[in-house]
Structure formats: C-alpha cells, structure tokens
C-alpha cells in the first residue's frame, strides 16, 4: 500500500519513535495515578470534577496525537476529526445543564423525601 513509512525506515531504525511511545506511556500512567490520588484526597465538588475533565482531555490528546498519530497528519485531517468532537463536548455540557434543570425545577423527587 502507498504508505510513506513502509519503505522509508528512519536512519536510527525507529529508535526515536519508540522513545516517544514509551514517553507517552509514562505520561498516561502518571496522569492515571494522579487521578487516583485526587479521587481519595480531594473533596467532591466542582473543582475536583474540573480537574478530572482536564486530565482526561490531556490523556485523550496524548492517545489520539501520538498513538493514533493524528498530531503528525495534515492539518485538514486534524480539523476534520477535532471539530465534530468539540461539538459533542458542547452537547455533553448542554445536557448536563438540562439534567440540573430537570432536577431543580421539576423536582420529581421531592415526594421521595
């Protein structure tokens, strides 16, 4: 298949690329370990959720960028993948707010108290 990598092995035999792979692995591992630390040391709240979401986005960036190689693709392909995802994030936020509305305004659970 027409593949820019297949027949152009880097001069170092791919050693630099393997180094990046292992670096990415350590980043993911340390971030996950930190998430555990935060889960058991911090109180539940908006700040904690924000930290978790940010760390998840950083992990996603490393997985998609390095493991899936998207960082090294053309700009048009990067945006092609990124924009729909950004819109999805908006949908998630919008419907979480909507869920809060259902809880507060309709308060269908008040009779359970």
């Amino acid at each position: 298949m027409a593949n820019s990598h297949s027949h152009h092995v880097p001069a170092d035999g791919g050693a630099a690329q393997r180094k990046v792979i292992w670096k990415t692995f350590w980043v993911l591992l340390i971030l996950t370990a930190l998430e555990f630390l935060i889960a058991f040391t911090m109180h539940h709240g908006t700040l904690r959720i924000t930290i978790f979401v940010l760390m998840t986005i950083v992990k996603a960036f490393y997985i998609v960028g390095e493991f899936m190689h998207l960082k090294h693709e053309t700009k048009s392909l990067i945006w092609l993948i990124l924009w729909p995802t950004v819109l999805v994030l908006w949908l998630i936020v919008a419907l979480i707010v909507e869920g809060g509305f259902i809880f507060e305004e309709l308060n269908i659970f008040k009779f359970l108290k």
Partner: protein
Amino acid sequence: MASTITSTSGEPKLWLGGVEPMKASYGKLMMWFFLISDTFTFSGLLVSYGLIRYSFPAYTGEVADFTFSNLYWPIPEKVFSAVPFLHGVYLPLVFVGIMTFILIFSSVTMVLAVEAGHRMDRKNVEKYLLWTLLGGITFLGCQAWEWTHFIHGTDEGSVIRELINGEWIERTVFGANLKENQYGPVPFADLFFFITGFHGTHVFSGVVLNYLVFYRTSTGFYDRRGSYEMIEKVGLYWHFVDLVWVFVFTFFYLV
C-alpha cells in the same frame, strides 16, 4: 489493496480516482470516518449519563457515612470496591485501576507492533500483537468478573424504599439488573450495563481484529504484500477503544 498504488518518494500518492486526499491512504481515512461515527454513538451514551446523573439528587452527607439507597445517586468508589479473591475487603476503585492499566499497556504494545511493521520486522510485529491480544483478553475477563459481582451484589444487600400504590414499601435487594438495583437508582445500573457493555463489545471486536492481523502476519501475508498498513488500521481502532475507556473511567468511576 487494489485501490492504491505504491509510489516512489516525491510523487503524489494515488487512489484510483487521483491524488489521495489529506495524504492519508484510503483504508486509514475510512477508519477515521468510522471512528468519528463511533464517537457519536459513545457520546450518545455519555450524554445520556450526564443528563440522567444530574436529574437525580446527589448524596450530600459525609463520604464515610455513605450507604446505598435508591433515593440518591451513589458514589462510584463505594460501588466498585471489590477485587477477585479478596472477598469482603474494601478496596475502592483498585480493580478498575488494574483494568485501566491493562488497557493502556495493550495500547502501548499495539503502537509498538505498528512501529515494527514500518520496519517490516515480522518477528516483533508478531510479539507485540500477541501481547496486545493478551491485554485485550485479560481486560474482557476482568470485565466479566466485574459484571458478575455487580449483578450478584454484596452479602448484605441493601434496603430500598419504593412508593407502590401510595404506600411506602421497604425491601432488601441484592445486586443489580435492568429492573432493580441495590447500589442506587435503577438508571445507574442500566447505564453501567449499557456503557461498559458497549465498550466491552468493542474490546471484543478489537481482539478478533487483532487475532486476524496476527494470523496474517505469522503466515507472512503482509511480507508478500510488501506493507504492514493493516496493522496501523487495526491499531487506530484499538487505540480508540482505549480512548473510550479513558472517558468511561473518568465519567463513570471517578466523577
């Protein structure tokens, strides 16, 4: 694949119709399109989770005093606190942490297989694909155990209150299914089954795909074809499955 033509460096690479768009081969681009559509499906599940989660009351007391009740959303670390062979020991999120590690590590071995494929290094492709397969199968095994435990529940069960025909009924429930749930409101169990189940199905497909490319690698198929790009395409899928788990882990188990 018949639809692509190998070119020497410098010339634009071609599909059947002309120059390849976005400098990506047909197969890889189609895999990206598929993954985007799969993202929408998983987002649908996560969006539902967000909506339902926030339309239920949250537990407001101290974490240490938490008890299961169907009147508020549970704290995930209290639900997922069991580990195989350590019955009755309270180990919050330990098992799911192990599962996360297994999946991240299998993603690493997958990308190492892709890298070996670039060098046409068949032995290493085989080796790393086997490690990836092992990781995937182990993850599925862990998930099967977690489901079993979730369905059977704790020894004591928990007392739930229900309003039936205008009267409050109390009864003890063990474990969870789609209709009743000892850990919290019924939708919590429903979402657990749907989200982790749909992800597990993806892991299973990934294991099957990995096995197929492993088989073709070991019979020398990709050497004869002159390219290991199929490993890259399956790799894209496998990393996506890992990526979804990263989100499931955060939104279902941590937040």
